[in-house]
């Protein structure tokens, strides 16, 4: 009798909280999405992408400057990438117009052949430049694609080079609304204060984590918390990609005009904004 009463009580008490949680799950993920991919109106960063092959201690490094401009908060964005390293691909440029509900517009310029190559933008899960990141990981997976739920609140400790940093997070679970090839489920741990994703796990249809993302070195740049070091691992393949942001060459709201995100810039990069 007593147990039945307590059960009833529990149900009464917690039932409403489940519904509110469902609403706030979407909110959390939306906030997280905006905080990590739509910081400022525009931005520029020099990034180093270090791809570690299986078992390798020495990565293959690509250094590039990335410019972006947000057209709609949580919506369209434009990117321009200028490659600096390795030396033999220097001046290679890449232009992306990102859309939420249609295929991206992608153009790659190859200076050695002086050709602009249209790249199909349909497959957002494809690897980005041979790294462990997908295009979607780089430009952000839109929160509307998944059904989100809060699993709980967890403390996540990230071991950095010299110290360990602890975050209070929402542990989230997201399931694609439409069945996808690779992703069966995404688990993410979102920092409660900054809404920065601290850790994300991509789970395949076999129930295995096939990619694991972690944020390191969160610094405030131009007033925005910015992840200076991000690591994406592919545990099943033994590979890993680290993306580093140049601490001095990462800025927001520089007033980068939208008209530089055009095909013409591929051959004549807007050096003014790249340096």
């Amino acid at each position, binding site marked *: 009798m007593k147990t039945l009463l307590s059960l009833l009580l529990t149900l009464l008490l917690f039932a409403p909280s489940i519904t509110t949680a469902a609403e706030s799950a979407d909110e959390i993920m939306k906030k997280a999405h905006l905080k990590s991919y739509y910081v400022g109106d525009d931005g520029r960063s020099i990034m180093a992408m270090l791809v570690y092959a299986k078992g390798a201690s020495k990565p293959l490094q690509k250094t590039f400057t990335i410019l972006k401009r947000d057209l709609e908060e949580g919506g369209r964005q434009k990117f321009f990438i200028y490659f600096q390293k390795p030396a033999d691909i220097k001046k290679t440029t890449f232009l992306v117009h990102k859309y939420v509900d249609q295929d991206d517009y992608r153009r790659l310029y190859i200076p050695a052949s002086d050709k602009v190559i249209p790249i*199909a933008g349909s497959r957002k899960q494809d690897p980005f*430049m041979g790294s462990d990141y997908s295009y979607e990981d780089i430009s952000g997976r839109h929160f509307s694609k998944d059904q989100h739920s809060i699993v709980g609140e967890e403390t996540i400790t990230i071991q950095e080079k010299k110290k360990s940093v602890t975050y209070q997070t929402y542990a989230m679970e997201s399931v694609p609304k439409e069945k996808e090839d690779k992703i069966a489920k995404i688990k993410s741990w979102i920092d409660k204060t900054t809404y920065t994703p601290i850790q994300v796990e991509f789970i395949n249809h076999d129930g295995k984590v096939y990619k694991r993302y972690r944020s390191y070195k969160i610094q405030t740049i131009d007033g925005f918390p910015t992840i200076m070091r991000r690591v994406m691992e592919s545990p099943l393949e033994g590979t890993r990609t680290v993306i580093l942001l140049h601490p001095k060459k990462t800025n927001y709201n520089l007033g980068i005009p939208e008209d530089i995100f055009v095909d013409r810039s591929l051959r004549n990069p807007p050096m003014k904004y790249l340096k």
Partner: protein
Amino acid sequence: MIQRFLIDFAIKHAKLVMVLSGLITLFFLAAFPSLTTDTDPVKMLPQDNPAIVLYNQMKKEFDVHDMVVLGINKRDGSSLFTVDGLTRIHKITQEILEIKDHPPEPSWMLDLLHSVQFLKEQDKERNEIKDIMVTDDVMSISTVDDIVRNAAGELKVAPLMQTPPRKEAEARQILTAINENPILQGKLASADGSLVGIFMPLQEGMKDRSYFLGEEVKRIAAKYLVDGEDYYLAGLPIAENTFGNEMFVQMGVYAPAAGLVIFLLLFYFFRSIKLIIAPMLLAMMAVIWAMGALIYSGNTIHIMSSMIPIFLMPIAVLDCIHIISKLHQSYHKYDTREEAVRAVMKELFNPMLYTTITTIVGFVSLTSTGIPPVMVFGITVGFGVFLAWLLSMVFLPAYTMLMDEEALQKFGQAASDKKSWIMNMTVGFKNIAAKVPVFVIATATVLLVLSVVGIQKIIVNDNPVRWFKEGHVLRQADQVMNDKLAGTYMANLVFELPLPADMNTNFSTTVSDPEADAFGDEEDAFSEEAEQAPLPDMKNGEIVQYMGKIQQYLLSVKNQEGQVIVGGVTSLVDILQKVGKTALDDPTLPDNREQVAQYMFLFESGDLKKGKDMWKFITRDGRKAQMWVQLKNGDNNQINYLNVRLNEFMRTNQPPTVTYPNGENVQLQIQWSGLTYINSVWQDEMVNGMRSALIGSFGIVFLMMVFLFRSLVWGALAMLPLSLTILAIYGFIGYIGKYYDMPIAVLSSLTLGLSVDFSIHYIESLRATYRKLKNFQETYEEISNETAKAIWQNVLVISIGFMPLFFAGLVPYVTVGSFFFAIMLVSGVSTLVLLPSIVTVGKRWLLKAPQQKQPGNLSKEEENESDMAPTVQKVQVATEPT
């Protein structure tokens, strides 16, 4: 000394000998369940062999694997690229990807045997389910990607066939796409689409599961194939592993079959089942003990050691026949059984000791080859031969002592009153030698000369697929698939630009804890110093251009018969050309580093596997590149010929030289690797090793003969039948054009070990008898009755006994059977005809009757001595070798 001790022990403790033999046999038998096999030729070479080091390094650096290939063939030559055909191929691929290794079936037998052993740990490992294939790298129509341009003209990397097509036109389009993609062309399908290939790379260390994989794949393929279609499996790993599996079956069928025939022949000769069981038991014990010791010592059974039983059997039987034969002839002459046994053992002790030692020398000399499995083989057979001798000395007399009197009596009587055809034959041999000795010697000389000519004609060549008889499903597969596809024999050409001496190998990829140095290399990610010019590497225009040339050349090389050797070459060149053609409408190969790098970048950025397929052809640091060469023919002489031609090409077209920033000039290095190449390296080592082992043991045996007979001339005479046998057999091989391959190389030591036996017995007996009778004619009469008869019985038992091997499905077994036949016949006839002919012609020099000693009246001790030192030393001085 040893002799008396052994025989005393055998006679006095006959029962104990039986019990001990049984126990020892049980002990070694217990080793058999833990038997592991290994048919990997890579393990046949010392692991520090440069070719093996390069091979292992290459597999790791480029993440490439040995492959098994499934072919699905339309017999009428029509295309499989239909909605129905591709749907089935899609399903077959799906199921193949699901294949997992199975742990061995548990059985109470194994459990029981394992419980008395110390192999539990090993077993745990064996029970894990492992992947056999590198599933990510399986190449099938439904797993590979193709670089295309979509309707909007955009570049797209997409699976060639993610889901089976719904329209026939789409199905045909897939074949067109394969034929237009140099990376896929000739691999996934024949140009006409009538044969589809599925390439299954094997996980490291899983080559010995390829037979199992093959069986699973066959089961899947059979499920989906319709009338008019066949499936085939090809690739060296499957040939080698299938051989490994079939050899056990064959061994299980043909070794007992040979045993049965030998048993029947022995029964025919000696008519006493009870007595002839002894040699059968003895042979089995020698085999079980030697093999058991081999397994206990932790060795795996490879192709060569699988032949140990079949080598040991005849040797063990030979020893017994001499004893039984002698016993058969002289049993009735003695009063007691013990006396008879002692007398026979005493008489045969010396020749048996020497035949055993010479045989052991023949096999142990194999250790000089430096090839681990050959060494193991040589030592094990040598050990087995010793065991056979020991058992003949102890087990056989003990067994005889325990037999019931009646059987022995009958056996003895049978001897005296039977005038057999065997006798007639040996008398016939004697007569030939007596009447036309010069003719015999002349014939032998002609034979010798012809043999030497024949040996010059020997073609050294091997190919594991040829170990299966014509018509074997693997031979058919080999034919059909290499006819239609680029080739099922994989080799690799490795290109390397060594770093200048003063630059350390910063680029080496060493395995380390990723977390530990996660930050290590990132510190200077943004440092400006890296602005300096990059080091020249494989991306350099002239190197890529040169690789393109090599590729063209390899495809153009034709063998002596005018056939193309290489059906397909895949490398970075193809990736660059495909990218150029599809993305930039420019099919020419880039000629400058920037263009190469940017094409590679384009491929990598579009690739669905993060450029994985490209990194199989060039290392990430750019220091090395690799070409995947598909040969249509797995014969070692084909890749050797290709290598010779490639070297010629490189002499006239020197590989490019690059200049490092420190001013050092370094030339591009090119080396062969891959399983097909490893096989040819192994063959070279084998052939050379065997040759020097044979020459070495020939020398040792000769010295032993000189020592045994205390005479250079008699020593040389003793070597004659053996030399003639070896030369005749290998000369014959040269004439009929049979390839000198691994089994034939190994058999040279057996030939030596077996064929010297007869002449030892014969000469020893001839001289002993002559000493006794001092009359040439009488001596001949007597040895024709005894020793010659025993030799001829041996010839018949072994040559006929191993005839069942002629019907074996595996060529090496047929070869072994034929060798036994030839060795016995040639060395037997040359001992029984040629030796007496020479002695007849040269008796005046050869048989100077001993003057001083009269062996008949000697005491036991003295007689023993004279056994060790037969005839007079003078002989040696008086004669010159001719």
